[in-house]
Every structure is written in C-alpha cells, then in structure tokens.
C-alpha cells in the first residue's frame, strides 16, 4: 500500500500540482475581481442612487439566493443561445467573480455601516469634503473592519472553485478525476486532493489571522 502510494505520488504529482496551480490562479484572480466588484456595489448601494441602488440590491439577492452551479450552467450552456460564447476558463473566472462579488458587497456594506458615525460627523465639522471623508475616513476603517468576514469569503471562494470541475475547467478536482479515470486508482488520488485543499485553506486562514491582527492594530 505505502509503496504504491509513494509511486503514485511520484508519477502523478506534477499533474496534480498543475491542477492546483489553476485552482490558485482562478481563486486569486476571481478574488481580486470579486473584491473590486463588491466595493463598487457597496458604495453605489450606499449612495442611494435612484433605481441603480435598488436594482443592484435585487441582483445581489438573486446571486446569493441561487447555487453557483446553476449560475455556471447559465453562463456556460445558456449564454450561447443569446449570443455570448465563453470557454470554460472564462466562465469559471466570471462565475466565481460574480458569486464572490455579491457576497463581498454584503461584507463591505456591513463594515461601512459599522464605521462610527461620530468620525464622519467630526470630519464634516472640520469642513472636509464628502469625497475626502469617504476616501480618508470611511474607506480605511471599513477595510480593517471587514477583514475577518473577507477571509471567510476568500475561503468560501476557494471551496467553491472545486465546482468549476463540473464545467471542465482543468483545476485540481477535475485533474484528479481524470487521473482516477485513467488509473482506476480511487482512494489515493482523491484523498490526496482533499488533503491539498485542506492544506491550502489552512494556509489561507492562518494568513487571515495574521492580517487580522495587523489590520486591527490601531483599534
């Protein structure tokens, strides 16, 4: 058993690591896009722009209220019939970004509300212009307040990225399934895969705890 396991690891590790590489690329790029999207939505919603704010709220609820698998199917299988043709990787990136963006917008909206009202009022009293208040008073505090939930969302995004295997994105889960189908070896590859995910997520949450203490050092 042990010999076959180590033999397996030596033979298939490069392919599994290539899959892990795609998982990490998709995760990090969709995380960046999701955070930008979430910030934009949070600020637009708070701005109370007629129609736009309400429409965005409704959209966020729809994205949060349906499974990511169904959203990926819509992007991958249904979008071509309205003329949008995307390959699996693009669907994966866009799907994860939109899904994550909806959740991040809630995180940032919550953090924005938690910024003490008195700080904004004090800044207004000093005659600082609204844009500058948003940029220099609200934004930095909101960012540090949102760190714990943001780390949770990043972990969620990493776990959801496994779903991309269903629409044939060559990430860790789909590479492992391919190896299983080729070798008829089931236990070793899948347990190795689960172990890799566990390791990556443990690293993300450890890094998150470090960032959290760093970001809240002024509180």
């Amino acid at each position, binding site marked *: 058993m042990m010999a076959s396991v180590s033999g397996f690891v030596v033979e298939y590790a490069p392919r599994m690591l290539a899959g892990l590489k795609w998982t990490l690329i998709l995760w990090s790029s969709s995380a960046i896009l999701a955070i930008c999207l979430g910030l934009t939505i949070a600020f637009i919603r708070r701005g109370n722009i007629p129609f736009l704010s309400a429409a965005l709220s409704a959209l966020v609820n729809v994205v949060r209220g349906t499974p990511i698998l*169904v959203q990926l199917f819509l992007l991958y299988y249904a979008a071509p019939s309205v003329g949008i043709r995307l390959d699996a990787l693009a669907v994966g990136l866009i799907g994860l970004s939109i899904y994550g963006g909806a959740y991040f917008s809630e995180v940032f909206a919550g953090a924005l509300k938690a910024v003490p009202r008195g700080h904004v009022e004090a800044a207004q009293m000093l005659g600082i212009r609204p844009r500058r208040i948003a940029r220099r008073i609200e934004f930095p505090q909101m960012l540090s307040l949102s760190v714990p939930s943001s780390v949770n969302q990043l972990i969620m995004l990493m776990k959801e990225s496994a779903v991309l295997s269903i629409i044939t994105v060559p990430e860790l889960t789909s590479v492992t399934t391919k190896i299983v189908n080729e070798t008829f070896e089931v236990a070793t590859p899948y347990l190795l895969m689960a172990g890799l995910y566990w390791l990556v997520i443990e690293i993300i949450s450890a890094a998150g705890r470090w960032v959290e203490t760093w970001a809240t050092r002024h509180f």
Partner: protein
Amino acid sequence: MDFSVILNSAAPLARGAATTIVVSGLSIFLGGILAMAFVFTRQGTTKISLMWRTFIAVFVSLFRGTPLLAQLIVIFYVLPVFVGIEINPFPAAILTLSLNTAAFQSEIYRASLKSISYGQIEAAQMVGLGVWRTRLRILLPQMLRLSWEPMTNEIITILKNSSLISVISVIELTRVGQQIAGATFRPSEAYVAIAVLYFLMTSLIVVAGHLLRRRIATGAA
C-alpha cells in the same frame, strides 16, 4: 425564449424541487442532532474526553476546510474502497451533507451555548435536574433560539450546496434541469427555470427566518 417547454416539464421540476427540499431538510436535521451531540460531549477532563475533543476538532476542521464536492466524491467513491460495500447515491448524498452541516452547526451551537450564563446550569443543578435534563430542557431551547440567524444562513447554504449531489446522479432539481436541457435542447429556459425555483426556496427561508425572529423578539417562541 420559449417557456412552454418548461410548463411541459412542470411535474419533473416539482419532483426535483421536492427531492432538493427533502435532502436538505433531512441533512439539516440529522446534522443538527450530531452537532448537538458534539457540543454537549465536548466537556470533561478525562483522557478519553480529551481524545474525543481532539477528534471533534479534527472532524470540524476537515469538513469546514475542504470543498463539499471533494467530500461528496470521497464518501461516494473512496469510502466503499475501505469499507468494502457499495453506497447508493441518495444515502451518500444525505451522509455527506449531514456531516458537512454538522461541522458548521456545531460551531454555531458552541457559540450560542457560550452566551448562556453558567448560573442557569447551576440553578438547574440546585433544583435537582440531571445533566441531560438540564441540557435538553434548559439549554437546548435557548441555543436554538439564540442561533436563528446563523442557522438561516446555514439552511440556505445547504439548500444551495445540495445542487452538487447532481454530480453523483441524485435526481434533484439541478439534475432535472440538466435532463430537461438535454431533452429539449433549450438550456436557457431549463436553467433559468431551476434558478427561479432555487431563488424562491431560498427567499422562503429568508422570510421564515424573519417571521421566526419576530416571534422570538416578542417572546412567543
């Protein structure tokens, strides 16, 4: 778009939605019992209870720290290799979702147990209630009441994640959508239809959560 194909498939869609609800509900319930058992048996200072506590910590970390899809694959494909018996898709799906939600629910209940003051346990002991009677009659109702908000989120998460069991060919809502898309060559209508149904179900859970909160707030629950 032509939604008449969807109206023709109303019956399988309803069956799929019913399966989704049953699987999610059963998993939330079974996972909840397991989570409560974990939360109530974590105490103790003997060597065995220390080992038990370590086991729970590893269990929770494993199920919270890996994708549900990976858990589903491991339980459906890998577990039979070690145990030596085939497991059907449906029980495998329930088992995976239950264990997954048990890990998340045990964290929820642990937090709510912490916020109940210890004086209540002492008072219960004083009036002669046994350990389990205290847990079931004094602590459990309060824990359920305190955790309505994270539990609403957890139920929504499980309902949405139950779409993944289509991968091991359980005929739930997503699988029905795939079947309709394949049979009618109309993926847009099929996937929009199941998205709408999922959204209806999760919205209902949100509304139920708010009604529950109001009842709790007025002290009626």
